[in-house]
């Protein structure tokens, strides 16, 4: 099979020369010969001839980019691709992953026809088993998401499972998810087929050519240095799989690609006496941590053990892949699990135990996109052992990204820029993948946090808050308090909050929310990304006016909520910008924007020495004083009048708090509640916190965490970037016309698209849903990603949800679309939203919901500051 496809690879030379080269003498003549063989330049160089590299090459060539060179250090499809278990499964937790797998499925299915290469594609279907009710809930959630994107699937009973697969022991099952269109195939052959098709489209493929490093000039890819010579190029695509991390670091300007390999084991057996049917469905038993597929009449079974063995931490060539040892003792739990599931296999003879490295990422999602540091450097790697399932779709999105500048779907969840340099420590990666690999088959419940690689970035108040009972979550490496356990609460009991139902911190967060509503709370929000932009002249204002949709030419001291839009009018970032003085601005963005926003600004800012962009995240501790009494606390601490007359909403002032001077106080809270943000130089943080807490005592001050904040902002219908907003949503779609100044006197990125949208109307609308018949105590809680039905028709998915303690209802936020009978998107009008009966599908159960386009202003009017309502940030009026 393999030899046949060698013909698709353009060989540099006839075999004698080859032998001479491989004798490692490295004579100059040989080197010249090698250099001559490679093209001197190309538009795109792809490194890696596995399924990812070939898929990118295939899709690029399909989209018309023909000047593509693919380099593979060994043979094509001989890395992890060769060892892949060959299961294509669309039952994924993320919609984007489902879509990628679905596309891959459709692509592979016709690949044999297109290229004439057998890929071993057999549509077997897959069955995911549930041994527990919680697992069944998880499968039901997947099921309802699969159905709405058009992938047939159903929840079936154990009895049905037994019918579908005769060897299974089903007595301990409570149900299963059946996806009939899932398939098995040979991933190496798929890669060869993709390579062959790409080659026919003009892609040049060179094997046994290793990329040494990528040449970068002024933050732009200029070429590739290989062991056979240089190639000039504009674009470089790193599809080096488990070596992607190292390859990324080998540049002069390193590109951090956080991934790490673990050993992965699967078992091959000889054929069963009566060979298994080739259409026998694939079994995934996540509670047993194993997968089982038929393989040449026998079975192939592997899994994700609890104690993974990380490998290649020190980098490449520590071990050759072929040298990986079988480790039966390590495989024992999985083998036991397999025999429990299929007891009849006892007599089946072992062929071998395969050990192959699989690559994992710090958050279990693959990595794609352009490097924030080097333009033209693209990455597609870290497939978390789902390379075959994602291969087609991921290759397509990346090719779109390169050709069009952005992919056709929102891939922020997979974007390389969600990581920063802090995730590139080898130790961090090693420890984190040891947690991630078992998680592959662990139950994914709402609001779980990673346990490893924690306490890396912390606020100076970390210890103080921790001592007061803070429970922590992590975002972009930064520790943030979730909620504070009161001293009298049983701590042990609280740790069991892993549930799909009402969590045990419900009462705790309720009291925090109440305190925010009635008195005053302190929330440490230091994790937010903070930039300062300064210039000698008006350059800062000019560039910001061009980058942001709102009008930033405001008087000094004003704060503007604004979006940073892309050409399509979609949100690249949603931030608040304070004008510190004529020539300098202070910009606050969500935590995970640190890399993404920086890259965007750098990309669009002129390389002008008079313009200075600085990341000051680490310089300031941010405390959010939230609640009606915040004003009292602050005026007592600063001896300055804080009433709305003196300190109107959305205003920023440097003032003294306690002994500390130069604290940036801003009258906004990110939640719509009255209150202030204090940006405190870190050396004052402890002092200011202590002062605030001691003065606040008489106003009933207490600590609060992000769960309280979440509940507050969601009931106020505040969208957060990264959860609700993404690069494909425009301000008009989420009712933020007021934050866009189309006529601010100058052009800005995305203006054109917005103008057009304003004329044509929007195709989706950000909507708030209040669950009506949902029993908080007994029903499953919404999370995000639940399908929304309007009059029984699927119209969209939720993006976030929280329990509103004020409304005493669950609130879900999500986008509503309007599909015609033929599936085309139509304009969504307010009328369309308002005239409809809505239901939210939570794990197969539909709850009635009321749709709202505007928040309940009246509910949140505070007696104390009634006159202030219009000043608090209630957008979209």
């Amino acid at each position, binding site marked *: 099979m393999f030899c046949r496809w060698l013909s698709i690879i353009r060989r540099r030379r006839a075999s004698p020369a080859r032998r001479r080269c491989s004798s490692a003498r490295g004579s100059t003549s040989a080197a010249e010969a090698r250099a001559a063989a490679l093209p001197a330049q190309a538009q795109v160089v792809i490194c890696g001839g596995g399924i990812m590299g070939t898929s990118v090459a295939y899709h690029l060539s399909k989209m018309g980019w023909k000047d593509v060179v693919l380099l593979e250090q060994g043979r094509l499809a001989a890395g992890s691709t060769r060892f892949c278990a060959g299961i294509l499964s669309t039952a994924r937790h993320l919609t984007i992953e489902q879509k990628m797998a679905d596309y891959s499925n459709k692509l592979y299915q016709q690949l044999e026809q297109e290229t004439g290469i057998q890929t071993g594609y057999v549509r077997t279907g897959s069955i995911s088993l549930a041994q527990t009710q919680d697992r069944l809930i998880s499968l039901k959630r997947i099921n309802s998401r699969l159905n709405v994107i058009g992938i047939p699937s159903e929840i079936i009973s154990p009895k049905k499972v037994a019918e579908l697969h005769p060897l299974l022991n089903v007595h301990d099952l409570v149900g299963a998810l059946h996806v009939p269109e899932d398939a098995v195939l040979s991933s190496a052959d798929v890669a060869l087929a993709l390579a062959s098709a790409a080659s026919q489209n003009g892609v040049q493929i060179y094997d046994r050519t290793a990329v040494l490093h990528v040449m970068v000039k002024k933050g732009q890819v200029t070429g590739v240095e290989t062991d056979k010579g240089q190639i000039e190029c504009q674009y470089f695509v790193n599809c080096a799989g488990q070596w992607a991390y190292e390859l990324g670091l080998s540049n002069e300007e390193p590109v951090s690609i956080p991934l790490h390999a673990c050993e992965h084991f699967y078992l091959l057996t000889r054929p069963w006496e009566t060979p298994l049917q080739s259409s026998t469905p694939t079994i995934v038993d996540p509670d047993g941590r194993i997968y089982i597929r038929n393989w040449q009449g026998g079975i192939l079974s592997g899994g994700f053990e609890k104690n993974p063995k990380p490998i290649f931490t020190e980098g490449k060539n520590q071990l050759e892949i072929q040298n990986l040892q079988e480790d*039966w003792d390590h495989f024992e739990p999985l083998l036991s699990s397999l025999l429990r599931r299929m007891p009849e296999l*006892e007599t089946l003879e072992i062929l071998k135990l395969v050990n192959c490295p699989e690559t994992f990422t710090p958050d279990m999602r693959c990595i794609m996109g352009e490097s924030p540091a080097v333009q033209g450097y693209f990455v597609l790697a870290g497939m978390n052992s789902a390379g075959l399932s994602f291969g087609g779709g991921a290759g397509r999105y990346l090719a779109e990204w390169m050709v069009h500048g952005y992919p056709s779907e929102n891939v922020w969840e997979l974007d390389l820029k969600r990581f920063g340099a802090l995730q590139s420590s080898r130790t961090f990666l090693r420890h984190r993948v040891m947690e991630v690999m078992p998680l592959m088959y662990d139950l994914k419940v709402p609001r779980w946090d990673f346990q490893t690689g924690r306490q890396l970035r912390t606020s100076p108040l970390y210890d103080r808050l921790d001592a007061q009972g803070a429970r922590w979550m992590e975002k972009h490496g930064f520790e943030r308090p979730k909620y504070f356990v009161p001293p009298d609460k049983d701590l042990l009991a609280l740790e069991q909050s892993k549930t799909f139902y009402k969590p045990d911190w419900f009462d705790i967060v309720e009291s925090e929310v109440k305190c925010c509503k009635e008195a005053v709370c302190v929330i440490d929000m230091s994790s937010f990304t903070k930039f300062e932009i300064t210039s000698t002249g008006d350059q800062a204002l000019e560039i910001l006016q061009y980058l942001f949709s709102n009008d930033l030419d405001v008087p000094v001291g004003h704060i503007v909520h604004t979006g940073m839009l892309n050409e399509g009018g979609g949100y690249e970032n949603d931030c608040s910008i304070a004008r510190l003085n004529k020539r300098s601005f202070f910009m606050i963005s969500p935590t995970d924007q640190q890399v993404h926003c920086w890259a965007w600004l750098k990309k669009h800012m002129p390389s002008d020495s008079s313009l200075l962009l600085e990341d000051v995240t680490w310089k300031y501790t941010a405390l959010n004083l939230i609640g009606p009494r915040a004003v009292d606390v602050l005026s007592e601490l600063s001896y300055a009048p804080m009433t709305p007359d003196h300190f109107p909403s959305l205003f920023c002032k440097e003032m003294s708090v306690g002994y500390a001077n130069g604290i940036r106080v801003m009258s906004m809270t990110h939640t719509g509640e009255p209150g202030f943000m204090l940006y405190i130089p870190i050396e004052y943080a402890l002092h200011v916190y202590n002062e605030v807490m001691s003065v606040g005592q008489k106003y009933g001050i207490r600590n609060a965490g992000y769960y309280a904040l979440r509940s507050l902002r969601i009931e106020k219908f505040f969208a957060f970037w990264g959860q609700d907003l993404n690069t494909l949503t425009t301000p008009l779609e989420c009712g933020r016309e007021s934050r866009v100044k189309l006529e601010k006197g100058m052009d800005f990125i995305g203006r054109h698209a917005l103008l057009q949208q304003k004329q044509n109307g929007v195709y989706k609308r950000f909507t708030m849903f209040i669950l009506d018949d949902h029993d908080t105590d007994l029903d499953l809680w919404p999370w995000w990603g639940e399908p929304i039905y309007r009059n029984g028709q699927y119209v969209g998915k939720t993006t976030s949800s929280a329990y509103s303690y004020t409304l005493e209802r669950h609130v879900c936020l999500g986008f509503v679309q309007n599909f015609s009978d033929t599936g085309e998107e139509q304009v969504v009008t307010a009328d369309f939203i308002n005239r409809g009966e809505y239901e939210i599908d939570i794990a197969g159960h539909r709850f009635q919901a009321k749709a709202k386009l505007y928040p309940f202003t009246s509910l949140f009017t505070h007696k104390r500051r009634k006159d202030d309502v219009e000043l608090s940030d209630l957008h979209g009026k």
Partner: protein
Amino acid sequence: MGGAIEWKGLSDPVTSQSWRGARFSSAPAPPSRGPLSASPPTRHCAANQEAGSAPARTYGRGREAAWRGRGAEWAGRGRGAASRTGLRGRNAEWRHRCRSLLVRKKRPVFCRARRMCVCPGPRRSGIPIRSSSLPLFSDAMPAPTQLFFPLVRNCELSRIYGTACYCHHKHLCCPSPYLPQSRLRYMPHPAYATFCRPKENWWQYTHGRRYASTPQKFYLTPPQVNSILKANEYSFKVPEFDGKNVSSILGFDSNQLPANAPIEDRRSAATCLQTRGMLLGVFDGHAGCACSQAVSERLFYYIAVSLLPHETLLEIENAVESGRALLPILQWHKHPNDYFSKEASKLYFNSLRTYWQELIDLNTGESTDIDVKEALINAFKRLDNDISLEAQVGDPNSFLNYLVLRVAFSGATACVAHVDGVDLHVANTGDSRAMLGVQEEDGSWSAVTLSNDHNAQNERELERLKLEHPKNEAKSVVKQDRLLGLLMPFRAFGDVKFKWSIDLQKRVIESGPDQLNDNEYTKFIPPNYHTPPYLTAEPEVTYHRLRPQDKFLVLATDGLWETMHRQDVVRIVGEYLTGMHHQQPIAVGGYKVTLGQMHGLLTERRAKMSSVFEDQNAATHLIRHAVGNNEFGAVDHERLSKMLSLPEELARMYRDDITIIVVQFNSHVVGAYQNQE
């Protein structure tokens, strides 16, 4: 009241107050010849008897001979006839019982009764069943039974338990209540004999029986046993960064189980910072722990300095001269209970500095190669010399003066390993042992001894001693397997009583502090003391080049080796360590194996593995076996519990202090070294 002094031994008057036994030193022993009703004399009697009758140091070879020899010695010393016959009679009875035990080879009466029994027997009194001194419980010397039995019975659990893992931190130098019983035999005072009349013996004996048969409900639970065993355990892993460890040592486990109160053994481990390599050592003290303490904290510095290249020595000297910060020489790996005496550090430092100054003067820097063997020998000899000199010179500080004298008059053996890459040197002085665990190709374990014991069982040592002294001393220099009839190890640190001339000893003692002067032991001059020195601290150095099959090294004091055979030691540690790292990997390789068969095999292997997980420390695991092994070589919890619940006064009779260091080698690194060359 000579006995009282001896009880007190070399104890510091202050610290001895905290020692429970000390009250006896002030209580006058009634010179009564009648039935022993008062406890202090009884105790004396017991102690003295055991003191007198604990000659045989090792089991096995020539034990019977040792027994007979001891009887002869008693007779030869010319004690009162009554005592002589009494002892003889008892000895005969013991011997009889021992034989009967031998024949039956069954567990003795007390075990069948399933009771806690604390009847003590004379320590090491040669029951020819390996590692089973327990059968003696029911038969042996009954005297202390009545004394200690109520103690045990009335004690709360915690107290005994506390005693067993008694922390000896506060004792700068530890008094040695049972001074004469172990390595050093001191001539029994004639007065003791009066307590040991046959009639009394019989009376005590019967009483002992009666008490012993009283049912008791005192047991240590497994967690309690574990916490006793683990109280002193220490593990060190050579730091690695993500699986990368370039040292040939993976790490070591060490542990101690006291029998003496306080323990006289010491251990040390340190990494050389200015040269490569790691030092590990066990030190077995006698006549108190002063010497073993001093050696444990000083010897490694001497070795490290001996290994330093000339330039580094100069650098260090210059730093000291100019008051700059000193290069750290050693990184210690210490258990919290392993302490260093702060008071003497200045004194010790000055001696060390003199040493390196001399090294600097001697070596003008032309030769750069330092021979480890030579360095080890020099360091040992130099330290012993310094100990001796410090005692002769004295110190103006009376506390220090007393300390250096106690160090010099007590003794310690040392067994030190220096590991640098694949070069393993073992320097041994005395009767501790270094044993290499070698895994054969078939996975079985074999023991390679890397040190020779310096005692009467070593022909070459006997030969050496005879050669070093005039012919006419050939008979007296080693008597009853002891040096001058007194000391069991033939090489040791300290013990100036066997090194200094009589004149010097007298002079030092006379000018010394009163505590020393009052002490019978220090005053006493060994018999047939004609041509000192009789004792040396010069070590015997063994070199071994590590091979990948050398998996670990066990350094242990004789307390371990006298209860366990070396082969068993190596097997137990080997199985423990392989259990920790799984067993040999299985490979299917072309054989026909079904899933079911493989599953069975794996389950079995896992079960085997989990059984060794009770201990996280190889040394603890070994002690558990050493103390608790039954005749089938398996740990018997009941036995372990009994042995560990012995009050400190009795523990010494059933076992010696045990100190173990297990060093694990990194086969990959060792193999890589091998491949390099």
